[in-house]
């Protein structure tokens, strides 16, 4: 299925033998009257995601304004599932699609960890960084949930759909769904691809020592009702990344599905004026 009309898709071979799938909306749309709109936005998915299942909503929104690329990491072998391997997959894919031109890197959840690490290690590649529901070092709260997930995965996988729905969305969002809508959502989550290796990786994430190496303008997006990567985790990113601003959306962890347009508008506003907000700004939300 096309993620957005006119988008190309294909695969990229990485030097370690992994194969990354991509969508690319090139050529970029004609610029909007506001902002130069010349950026290329690259989207990095999180645990258990793909370009399509993570970004089916956000990609088409960004693609109305920017050339947008979304990657699907290769997780088919255990050796492909590490922060270094993901950084390699992302870096080589971006070089292949964009050459040496720096990009806007957007990562969600574990994808945010990968995006931060890439920005810290290859500052020349990243013009602007956006972390969404990311974190730097896994805390006890996350480990406890990870333990529970593992227990269910091994003993009663039929319950994972409900458990992950419960963890991924805010109370208000779940309450806004019809009964049919809620069961469709649960079914969709239980049908997603195996994430066991990534869940193992999540246990040991610690890039806290690299935050200081991130120099580009960074928008740290926290989800106010996130049970998986709490807003406090994003606040630590905001604390550790020098040139960052902070924006909080009252959503669950899956803001990319729960409130994609508010995330899109936050990214768009930040790209239009990354220097409008001095580093350290807590950006206030606009109200309808």
């Amino acid at each position, binding site marked *: 299925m096309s*993620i957005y*009309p006119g988008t190309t898709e294909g695969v990229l071979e990485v030097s370690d033998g992994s194969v990354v799938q991509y969508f690319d909306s090139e050529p970029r749309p004609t610029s909007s009257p*506001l902002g130069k709109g010349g950026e290329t936005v690259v989207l990095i998915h999180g645990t258990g995601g793909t370009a399509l299942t993570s970004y089916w*909503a956000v990609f088409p929104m960004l693609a109305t304004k920017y050339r947008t690329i979304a990657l699907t990491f290769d997780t088919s072998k255990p050796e492909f599932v590490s922060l270094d391997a993901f950084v390699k997959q992302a870096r080589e894919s971006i070089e292949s699609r964009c050459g040496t031109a720096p990009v806007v890197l957007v990562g969600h959840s574990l994808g945010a960890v990968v995006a931060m690490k890439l920005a810290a290690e290859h500052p020349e590649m990243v013009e602007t960084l956006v972390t969404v529901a990311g974190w730097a070092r896994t805390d006890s709260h996350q480990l406890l949930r990870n333990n529970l997930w593992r227990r269910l995965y091994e003993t009663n996988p039929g319950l994972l759909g409900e458990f992950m729905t419960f963890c991924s969305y805010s109370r*208000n969002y779940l309450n806004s769904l019809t009964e049919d809508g809620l069961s469709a959502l649960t079914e969709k989550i239980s049908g997603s691809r195996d994430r066991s290796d990534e869940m193992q990786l999540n246990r040991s994430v610690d890039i806290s020592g690299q935050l200081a190496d991130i120099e580009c303008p960074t928008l740290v997006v926290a989800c106010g009702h996130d049970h998986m990567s709490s807003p406090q985790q994003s606040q630590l990113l905001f604390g550790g990344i020098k040139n960052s601003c902070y924006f909080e959306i009252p959503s669950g962890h899956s803001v990319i599905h729960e*409130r*994609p*347009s508010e995330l899109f508008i936050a990214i768009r506003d930040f790209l239009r004026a990354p220097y409008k907000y001095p580093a350290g700004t807590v950006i206030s939300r606009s*109200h*309808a």
Partner: protein
Amino acid sequence: MQSNTVHDVVIVGSGFSGLGLAVTLARTEDISFTVLERANNIGGTWRDNTYPGAACDIQSHLYSYSFAPNPDWSRVYATQPEILAYLHDVAEKENVLPHIHFNAEMTEATWDEVDSIWTVTSTAGIFRTRVLVTASGHLSDPKMPDTPGINDFAGKIFHSARWDHDVNLTGKRIGVVGTGASAIQVIPEIAKSANKLTVFQRSAPYIIPRNDREYTDAEKGLFRKFPDAAQELRDELFWGNESRFPQRRQVPAFIDQIKDTALTHLKNQVTDPELYHKVLPDYEIGCKRILISNDYYPALSKENVDLKSVSVEQVTESGVITADGDHVELDALVLCTGFEASDLPIAYRISGRDGRKLSEHWSTGGKAFACTTVSGFPNLFVMLGPNTGLGAGSIIYMVETQIQYIQQAISFIKAELAVLEISTEVEDAFIDSVEERSRGTVWTEGGCASWYVDPRSNRLTTLWPDFMSEFRAENGTFSPDPYQVRNIEAGARERHHKEQSRI
């Protein structure tokens, strides 16, 4: 009535947009304004549409002014009486009623280049003003069909927006022409008591479930005592609508999702195969307005209701003849045939610089810079004019965006004694950017005819073809930069000062 008073602002219309601007100006110091209302009361659409079942398709906590929140909405989707009462409540609390002239229909407005003043002629006298704002709505003048013989009908005939409450439909044979937003609300109500109801459908709408319920007293209390909770709900509803925009850009995942919702609803509610095929739309979803209803399909399934998916060819003294030659005997005919949306009647009454009519400037479809100002028409601001409608969202958001823009422009005009006019080039560049964005949307490519597209030029002139947030980012903050700004000439300036000192 004619006076030498020169108002800062005359607003035409006191519906949601005109009233909203009036409230904002009333809260602004030092701006004199008056509102001309052709009817004898405020409310616009919500005053005129009193048909049984009339309600809003946008949740009330979003379909209300952000500057006048109402914690007491009785349900998710309020009905017409409650919305009208809300508007009255706002008007009274904000003390704007004394500014409104009722039974004052604007018949003509002309720009006087020498004095830099609009002269507004109305059925309640002549008004002179620096700034003219039309807030006359885009769904306010009923569109009447020109079916042959329509004047021959001996029974009762009326448009849904001009409901004749003296007519008792109980036990009668009723015809309803149209299956749009008004029709699907009124049909279930008529079906309750009619002897026989015949619905004449030109094209079937897509319909999705109406997730409606009453608010509990605890919720209302929460909204009252904790306004942030109401604000959070309002934001949630806004972003929910905003997130649906890619449907209109024909993004497959979005189309599949909404289509699945609509067709599942249809399958759940319509079991008769013949009716199912009649009400299955034959164009892409979103090309016409997507409607929300839980009781429309069940009404069509009733014994006393018949849906005819053929056009009405002729009206006779005793009923109508359809395209398949059937003669349907009727006691009353209800026209749910929509509104004059693309060729706005008010445009024929406004003459700008050089006496040029707004309708001439718009002869191939409405166009306005920032969807608000028009070249050749200095110090004129159009609310809910070209490209301000929405496929999915609350029009109040668009209204409030325009209120902010116009209020800032008025303050500038007042402070600088300025005449603002947009050049043709800047207006054209803006329209080009709107047209570029309308390409590839379901409205222009979805395979349907709708009131969104102007039949004279095939341009999408009624809808905003981008995110609502983009509308606010582009058109919500006034800057004099794109405008040709002229100061009122010295002579006119002196006269202006004298008049001001007389007030």
